[in-house]
């Protein structure tokens, strides 16, 4: 399979984005996490943080410690040595999240997708999801892909405040709101699991590349 060469783009004067491709796929995500891991292991001078996204990797650096063109050279060397070897899956974990399917939109989702509520619950809880990206707010994980028959656009009017712990779906993805924030996804359940806890060494429960299973609590 032919792949476009990576693109190196400045993100102001403290960031560098390596774009590995376009769109959302497990293949691209695997490459992004693999590149992020390789860059982390390489410990490039002046680099503080490395953040994988769907098809790109963000590299944040100390602008006073390393010049941008030198950083691009160092990063390019790591990325290019890595491209041939993208099969390492790292230390991916499977995390189980207990859910009570009592979300405010469960009935509406069932109606709009032509399922019963029990079917929606079954379809949502019988799959294993993949963590594509962490972001939006601390600890929020974009998980995919949901059953194609559950795909709905976002709500036309976002809620001003979604209860924390809400399990939600939109388009091809699912996720859990860690905090009371505005939100436009369809709420189908609720969990007590803390998606983010500043007291933990790794404050976000999930990492990019993890697998997630939602378990129905009766």
């Amino acid at each position, binding site marked *: 399979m032919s792949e476009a060469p990576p693109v190196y783009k400045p*993100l*102001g*004067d403290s960031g560098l984005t390596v774009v590995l491709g376009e769109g959302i796929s497990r293949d691209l995500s695997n490459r992004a996490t693999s590149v992020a891991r390789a860059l982390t292991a390489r410990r490039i001078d002046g680099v503080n*943080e490395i953040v994988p996204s769907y098809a790109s990797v*963000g590299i944040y650096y100390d602008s006073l410690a390393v010049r941008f063109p030198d950083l691009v050279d160092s990063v390019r060397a790591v990325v290019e040595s890595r491209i041939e070897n993208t099969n390492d899956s790292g230390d991916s974990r499977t995390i189980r999240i207990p859910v009570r399917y009592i979300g405010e939109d469960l009935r509406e989702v069932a109606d709009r997708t032509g399922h019963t509520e029990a079917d929606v619950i079954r379809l949502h809880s019988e799959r294993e999801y993949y963590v594509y*990206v962490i972001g939006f*707010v601390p600890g929020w994980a974009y998980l995919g892909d949901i059953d194609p028959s559950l795909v709905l656009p976002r709500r036309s009017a976002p809620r001003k405040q979604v209860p924390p712990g809400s399990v939600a779906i939109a388009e091809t993805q699912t996720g859990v709101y860690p905090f009371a924030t505005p939100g436009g996804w369809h709420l189908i359940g609720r969990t007590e699991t803390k998606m983010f806890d*500043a007291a933990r060494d*790794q404050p976000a429960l999930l990492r990019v590349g993890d697998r997630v299973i939602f378990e129905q609590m009766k």
Partner: protein
Amino acid sequence: MIVVERAPPYLTVQDRGRFGYRASGVPVAGAMDQWSFAIANLLAGNDRSAAALEWAIGAGSLRFETDTRIAMAGAAVEATMDDVPVTCGVPLDVRAGQVLTVRRLIDLRFVYVAVAGGLACPEVLGSRSTYLPASLGGIDGRRLKTGDRINIGERRSGAEHEIPPTSIGPAFGAEALRFVATSAIETKHIEHATFRVSQMSDRMGYRLESEGGAAIRGASVTSEPVCPGTIQLPPDGQPIVLMADSPTIGGYRVAGAVISADLPILAQCMPGRRVTFAAVSADAAQTELQRRENALMR
């Protein structure tokens, strides 16, 4: 100890920011105007990064329960210490029991109040910065309210910092913001338009309303990493510049990012202020930042 005698509508604890947790989705946060924040600290006799108060919008007052030294920087203020008028940009020696009252901020959005020793609320993930959406930092991760009491840290001993002249700092009031371009096509559009800062602006991002030039129609894209300063182009044609509480990733087309040295200028823009953009290289942006930082560290 500082007591918030009458809280202004918006008062939070901020510092240089929270670094190292973006992979967990944690924004950097920290002072919106890092330059004025640093100056306030240096004037108070602190290291430039000590936690200080970020004050916006309205009137309020603080009572100091110990003898100390404070300083304000950023927006000019109409303020008194007890009944004596005081100003920004100078160290103020305070006796226990005195009350600082700020009646009005003039022209700019934020004033920073630094106290010798810094604010000593607990660090959360390595920073005291308040990040409201996840209730991190400061006091319980929230805006300060009347009656709050804030501990002060140990006063630093040793040589006083030299205060850099205003001429080295950001050109507050300037219209042109320098940015590092990400893509050539959007750069042209951005450079040929003028904008006004919208009312829809907060610590997460400032909306800009296009004033002249061709409408810049952006797009939703696969989310990519972003940072404070990132200029996003949503489909509605009104750009967003992400600020201190910027999310870690964003799903709009990116035109580039305002350079660190100029971000304080935008942070301090009141709604309605006019801004334009001028592209510079990442290298030039770094040189400019280096010059600033050297001035702060002398």
